[in-house]
Each structure stands twice: as C-alpha cells, then as structure tokens.
C-alpha cells in the first residue's frame, strides 16, 4: 500500500472516530440531530461555515481557473475572502434570534415560518434540493477522482469508497458530527494548502520570480483580465465573479443553517474574525498554485488536476498523502453538510410537512438517514456514468442558490414589509432567470454574469411584489413583532416565545427564566 493511501485511510478513520465520539455526546431529538442542540462556539461556527462552503471546487475548479485564466481567477477569490464576514455580519445574530423566536430548526422551515404559507416551503424546498443535489454530485466526482489518483484503483471503485465514507459519518451524529468533522477538516485543509503553496513558491523561486516566468509564457495571465484579455472591461462578468462567493452564499441553505446553530448571538462577532483570517490564509492558495502549475506541470490534459499534479510533482510521498487528505477534507466537509441538508429538506421540509405529519422525532431522523442513502446512491450512479466538470457544476448550483435565496434570507431579518407573495416571486424569478441565463449562454452575449442578473431580478421581485401586495397580503402582526424584536440587541422576551416548540432547549431555558 502506498504511503499516500495509508495517510488517507488514517484520515478517514480519524473522521469516523470523531463522528462516533460526537454521536455519544449528542441528544436524540431533532434539534440535536439537525442543529447540534444550538451549542456551537465561534471557532466551530466559523470553520464549519468556511469548510462547508469551499468544497472540492477549491482544489479542482480554483486550480483550473488559475491554470487557464491566470490572475483573472482572483476575482472569485477576492469576493470569497469576504464571504464569511459578510454572512455573519448581515445574517448571523439576526437569523439566530429570529429562528429561535419562530421555533425553526431547518433553514427552509425558517423561511416558511417567516413567510407563513405552505407555498413558501413548496417553492423553496425543491429549488434548494435540486441545487444541493448538483452540488453534492460535484463533490462525489472530485472525491472519486482524488482517490483514484492516490490509490490507483479504478474511478468507480474510488468513487464508491469516497461516497461510502461521506455517508457513514454523515449518519453518525447528524449536525454535531458534521460540524465537528468540518472543523477538523478546515484545519487539515488550511495546513495542506499552506504546505503545498509554500512548496510551490519555493519551487518557482518565489512569487516575483514565478510571476516573471509566467509573463514569459503569456503576460496577459498576470492581468486581472484573463488570457487573451477576454474579460477586459467586462465589469458585469467581474462583479458577478466577486458576488458569487461573497454575497452569494448568504443564500445557501446548508451554510446559513450555521447561524441557527450558534451557541449565543455574540458568537457571530468572533466567528466573523476567525472566518476572515482563515479565508485570507486559505483562499488565494489554489488559484496561485494553479497559475504556477503552468511552470511546474506545463502539459496538463485536464487543468482541473493542476493542484493534484503540482502536489505529486514537488512534494515528498508522505507530504502528498497529507495534502491529499486536505483535498479530501475540502470535498468531504462540503459533501456531508450538503447531504445532511438535502436529507433534512427531503424528510423534514417535504415528507414530514406534506406527506406524513404524524411522524415521531425518532422516525424523522431515520427517514432523513434513508433519504441521505437514496441521494448518495443516485449521486453515485450519475457521477459514475457521466461525470460533468466540477467547476462548472459548482458555479452553476451556487449561482442558482444565491439568486433564488439571498434576497429572501436578507429581507427576512432586515425588512418587515417582505411578505409571502414577494418571497415566492423572488425565489421563482431568481431561479428561473439564473438557470435561463446560463442555458441560453446570455453571459457571453450581454457581458453580464448570471449571478448578477439573477440577484438583481430576485431583489426587484421581492421589493416590487411585496410593496404591491401589502394590502392583500399583510405581514402578520406576530411576525412584524418578531422582526422588530430581532432588530434589537437583547434577550428574547418570554412573551414572544409563547406557543413555540417547548422541546427547543434554548427556548425552554429562556421561558423558564422569565
């Protein structure tokens, strides 16, 4: 067995041990399974937020962008660096408080409670589920490819092992296991990325010398305008690239659920600082490694393998094993969060809400696990038979999620006039416009990215439709009071928690205090 594979197996085993350890500490109810009992501190919140949103894209897609477009790829990185602090500063404390007042334990249920209509959930759940399935598919492909490279086994076998490990520890302890493994994986990712970045810079003679050598190949690669200067003056595309991973991921249900799981509202402050620090250290790495791969592995047939190949070329075998573990960490930390979220949406937000309302909590957890298994099998089948490109799938799925959900999540806590018709119109317009823009390839014709167009349209929809329907569909008084209370920095009055789910530990504590 190669030393790389040994490292990887040790790493997989360590993740399972963490999952089992956390499972023994977890309670059995839905709040424990889906929100970790709202018990997460700043470091776990921040690193879970970052690692679950970074994915195999950072090692495959980002490296590929650096390799093919040079410093143009940095537009994505520069937006991404601010993603955590934007998310936590705009949504963090308010979403934590409002979700608690409304008694919500899933990010889609939260939308239905804030915009009280079954149609809110009927529209939100399928859009989120479809995008998450696309996204998780990309993670499976990335995991399978990585494992195939390290182990030498065939792609279908490597894919089966990667999917099996991800499902196993998603099963173990629900959200808490996922959050703690994501936390550990974020640290592994950071160390692996820094190691390979430092080795890359060493191999090319430093940043300045590496840039000089790249300029000899093609000086355009050092500009922010891409190879052949194709994006010069294309500000619509550039703003879209900046938005997709900064503002965009305030609309990702599997990411914003982190706000609801924070132990205390003040966690948002320190988590924001941790997230920014992590991002500054981690995010530019794969883009730079991809760029300098042009010097180290100049004849790559598949640019998505740039980071893998650089690691294999310049690092000693044991270090390649550690870096591969970091790569698998990025992939698995996103895939488990996605699978858990998909299972939650399918079981809690669709099955338990519309099909079998009498399920017990224990049954709900088991339905969620069965659905996760079914989704993993479907994902495996698609990824094994006809795997699409990872970067394209991730950018497509995240663009649709951002376009459909950013305005409804932001307006939920910041604008009390946002009502049911406005929210439904916004989600539908955001999803339809961004998908249509992508399918019709309107970006190249108009110079405007789908993210930018999708978000502008969905924002206009929620504002326009909400204002136009204020008389026919006023926001209920109890929701208005909840939003007014959410705007205040302070403890939740017990009167606002009356009639909510007494099983929610944090609410019970507050209700008992007053």
């Amino acid at each position, binding site marked *: 067995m190669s030393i790389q594979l040994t490292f990887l197996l040790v790493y997989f085993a360590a993740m399972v041990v963490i999952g089992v350890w956390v499972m023994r500490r977890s309670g059995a109810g839905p709040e424990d399974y889906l929100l970790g009992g709202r018990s997460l501190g700043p470091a776990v919140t921040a690193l879970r937020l970052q690692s679950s949103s970074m994915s195999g894209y950072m090692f495959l897609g980002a490296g590929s962008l650096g390799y093919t477009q040079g410093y143009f790829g940095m537009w994505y990185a520069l937006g991404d660096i601010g993603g955590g602090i934007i998310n936590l500063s705009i949504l963090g404390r308010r979403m934590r408080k409002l979700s608690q007042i409304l008694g919500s334990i899933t990010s889609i249920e939260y939308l239905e409670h804030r915009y009280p209509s079954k149609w809110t959930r009927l529209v939100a759940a399928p859009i989120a589920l479809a995008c998450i399935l696309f996204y998780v598919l990309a993670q499976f492909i990335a995991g399978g490819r990585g494992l195939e490279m390290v182990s030498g086994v065939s792609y279908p076998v490597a894919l089966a092992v990667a999917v099996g490990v991800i499902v196993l520890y998603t099963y173990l302890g629900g959200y808490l296991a996922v959050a703690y493994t994501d936390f550990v994986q974020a640290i592994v990712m950071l160390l692996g990325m820094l190691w390979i970045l430092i080795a890359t810079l060493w191999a090319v003679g430093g940043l300045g010398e590496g840039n000089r050598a790249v300029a000899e190949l093609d000086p355009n690669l050092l500009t922010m305008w891409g190879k052949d200067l194709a994006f010069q003056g294309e500000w619509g595309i550039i703003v879209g690239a900046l938005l997709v991973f900064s503002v965009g991921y305030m609309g990702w249900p599997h990411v914003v659920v982190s706000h609801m799981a924070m132990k205390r509202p003040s966690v948002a402050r320190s988590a924001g*600082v941790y997230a920014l620090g992590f991002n500054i250290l981690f995010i530019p790495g794969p883009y730079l490694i991809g760029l300098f791969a042009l010097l180290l592995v100049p004849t790559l047939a598949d640019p998505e393998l740039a980071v893998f190949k650089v690691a294999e070329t310049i690092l000693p075998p044991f270090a390649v094993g550690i870096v591969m573990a970091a790569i698998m960490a990025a992939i698995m930390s996103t895939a488990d969060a996605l699978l858990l979220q998909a299972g939650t949406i399918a079981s809690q937000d669709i099955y338990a809400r519309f099909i079998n309302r009498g399920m017990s909590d224990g049954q709900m957890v088991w339905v969620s696990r069965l659905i996760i298994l079914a989704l993993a099998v479907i994902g495996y089948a698609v990824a094994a038979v006809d795997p699409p490109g990872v970067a394209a799938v991730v950018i497509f799925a995240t663009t649709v999620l951002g376009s459909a959900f950013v305005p409804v999540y932001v307006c939920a806590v910041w604008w009390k006039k946002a009502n049911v018709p406005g929210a439904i119109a916004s989600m539908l317009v955001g999803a339809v416009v961004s998908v249509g823009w992508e399918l019709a390839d309107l970006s190249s014709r108009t110079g405007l990215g789908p993210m930018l167009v999708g978000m502008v349209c969905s924002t206009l929809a929620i504002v326009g439709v909400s204002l136009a329907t204020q008389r026919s569909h006023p926001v209920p008084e109890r929701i208005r009071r909840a939003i007014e209370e959410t705007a205040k920095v302070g403890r939740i009055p017990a009167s606002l928690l009356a009639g909510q789910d007494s099983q929610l530990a944090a609410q019970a504590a507050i209700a008992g205090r007053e």
Partner: protein
Amino acid sequence: MFNLPPFTVAMILGVPAFWVVYAAVFLYLSRNYDEADE
C-alpha cells in the same frame, strides 16, 4: 511589486484590505452583542 501590473497589485492587496476594514467596523458596531447572550 512581485513583477505584477500595478492594477493587479492594487486589486489583490486592496480588496482584502477592504474586508479587513469591514471586519473592524463590524466588530466596533457589534460590541454590545453580548447583551443578547442567554
């Protein structure tokens, strides 16, 4: 600097600097968040 065009340098240093300033402003404005802790 780093053998890069000036605009590239301005962006790769300037945008992260903007996020650091943003974070500092957020920390200042949210200094009373612990009042909401249970």
